[in-house]
């Protein structure tokens, strides 16, 4: 589904990604772990199409389409979804209106008519139940005055509504208490299928207790330096990142 080859990127002349290789297949959950500043968020932003980075080399293919040739909204229409680390406030635009616009713009791009209101409301009700959200939520201004946890839950709600092929969860666990974490993870698990894939970006093991990854990658200084199964996450939790750094130094 997603194939990243030798991706290099910099911002203001500073190289942040130094050759990323990553392959994610449908039905898989990948976790990318790593300390602050290792380039995890840069990677997710570049996949989604944020243009403040200079991509200096490599390629990103999504179902064989070259993502680098596409606008962010075109990538979204193909089914790429990014759950933002810091969701953005849009005053005066209700959650309902935002999701409605989002779904219908995506449908328009596919040549479909807008989703009938009744169908959309039904879907919203179901997904809200899944994420144990209050109905009042729908009428609030998007992310305005939301607590950290509410913002993250709202991201997952949007994901549930948009049913993407590839969901990238950028530190969705930060700002969530234990209960919210369980609810959000539960939602993600229920939405998982053979046809879609999830990339979970996180510092901590705790989210991975709930969303079990098939593959765990460790990112350090702009590179994926180690890849393993879920046991790698436990190892990291226990020992930190220093041992990997050491291992690397020894290989060099």
């Amino acid at each position: 589904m997603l194939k990243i080859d030798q991706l290099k990127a910099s911002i203001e002349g500073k190289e942040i990604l130094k050759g990323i290789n990553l392959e994610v297949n449908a039905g898989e959950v990948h976790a990318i772990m790593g300390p602050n500043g290792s380039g995890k968020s840069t990677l997710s932003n570049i996949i989604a199409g944020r243009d403040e980075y200079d991509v200096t080399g490599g390629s990103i293919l999504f179902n064989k389409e070259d993502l680098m040739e596409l606008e962010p909204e075109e990538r979204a229409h193909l089914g790429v979804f990014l759950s933002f680390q810091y969701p953005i406030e849009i005053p005066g635009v209700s959650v309902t209106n935002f999701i409605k616009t989002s779904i219908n713009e995506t449908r328009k791009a596919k040549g479909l008519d807008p989703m009938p209101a009744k169908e959309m409301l039904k879907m919203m009700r179901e997904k809200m139940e899944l994420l144990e959200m209050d109905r009042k939520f729908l009428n609030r201004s998007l992310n305005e005055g939301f607590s950290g946890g509410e913002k993250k839950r709202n991201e997952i709600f949007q994901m549930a509504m948009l049913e993407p092929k590839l969901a990238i969860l950028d530190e969705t666990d930060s700002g969530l208490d234990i209960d919210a974490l369980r609810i959000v993870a539960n939602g993600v698990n229920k939405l998982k299928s053979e046809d879609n894939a999830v990339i979970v970006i996180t510092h901590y093991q705790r989210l991975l207790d709930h969303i079990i990854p098939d593959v765990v990658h460790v990112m350090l200084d702009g590179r994926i330096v180690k890849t393993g199964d879920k046991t790698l996450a436990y190892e990291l939790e226990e020992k930190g990142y220093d041992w990997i750094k050491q291992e690397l130094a020894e290989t060099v």
Partner: protein
Amino acid sequence: MSDENKMLEEVTTSEYKYGFYTDVENDAIPAGLSEEVVRLISAKKNEPQWMLDWRLNAFRKWSKMKEPNWQKVNYVKPDYEAITYYSAPKKKVGPDSLEEVDPELLKTFERLGISLEEQKRLTGVAVDVVVDSTSVATSFKEKLGELGILFMSMGEAIQEYPDLVRKYLGTVVPPADNFFAALNSAVFSDGSFCYIPKGVRCPMELSTYFRINAAGTGQFERTLVIAEEGSYVSYLEGCTAPQRDENQLHAAVVELIALDRAEIKYSTVQNWYPGDKEGKGGVYNFVTKRGICHESAKISWTQVETGSAVTWKYPSCILKGDNSIGEFYSVAVTSNRQQADTGTKMIHIGKNTKSTIIAKGISAGESDGSYRGLVKVMKNAKNARNFSQCDSLLMGDKCGAHTFPYIEVKNDTAKIEHEATTSKIGEDQIFYCKQRGLGEEEAIALIVNGYVKEVLNQLPMEFAVEAQKLLEISLEGSVG
């Protein structure tokens, strides 16, 4: 230029989409202004002597006045000798049905998406259409007549209800109030007159579409709305203008009189031709709008200003009666090289008077938008309350937004609150929307609509839809 700016520029520099004009024969008098011209206008309209005297008095005062220049706008002052002060379509005035209306005009309205037929059928709005200073279509008059509501052109009102006009005309905006009001008082050609009898709640929104439609013709509309004790009326005013090369002056005067316990809601969507990308051409919109509230009366102004090269406009409320209420809700959009200096004045005279001001400015391109507002609390206005909120939204980094709030309080029981914010449409917000599948234009439209929602909510439903469309068009570009 950063990508964000490039993109913003693209979406904020679209050409004026309503740039066409209708070919209707005109009956115009020669350009220039003199006592003779004033007499000629009055004679053409077959006015009584008192009306002519009133005009002449205004003209003499105007002749001694100077064009103001304290507002934060730059423009080439109009050549008042080059303006034609009267023009009327040659077709007979006052058709009984749409079939009698010049088909060219109907076509114009259809192109604007505001065809009379549609409006009549779908909304039940009585439309008094003002094209080139003279009313050419009046509808629903009979139905309103049953309730004793008068809704007609000012010209007709002067003929048919001279006592009412004489009693109220110029009582809120005196002829010598300011340079442009004086000019209007001398040469006003037509406009709307509306009278709601005591205790009557007007069952439909009264609506007038204005349209400048002859080269070189200044437009001097005069509107008078009188709401008798305990009555209610919602009045809509909207306009679009065809593309022009030379500047057109629009100096209207609107007077609202809300007697005891009456309520007037006055909504405007203004989309005069703003000039081209270089700021050439475009309408000068210098309007005086003011209402007076008697005891427990309420006046609410809502405006969506997207057009004009230069706008200079302060819909105001004189809260004369105790417990009266004044409201001002405004969205002012400037793009390209447009300039707007707009706001309101709330004059608290009576006790327990309340006023609310919500002003939202949107500046794009190289435009300049200013909010200028005065809240004045007089000595006897015990317990006056005001809440003001002035927000500015900037698009790109070449535009400007300014806020000039003036507060004068002469009674220490007054409570005045003022809030102001300035924000920019951020790359973050746009990227967030794009990630969710919205294109650039949709993203900006969504963000802008969210920003102005509080004001648009004040508009009647069908008008809010049109206002939203206008906002999108004025900020729309070549993208997509």
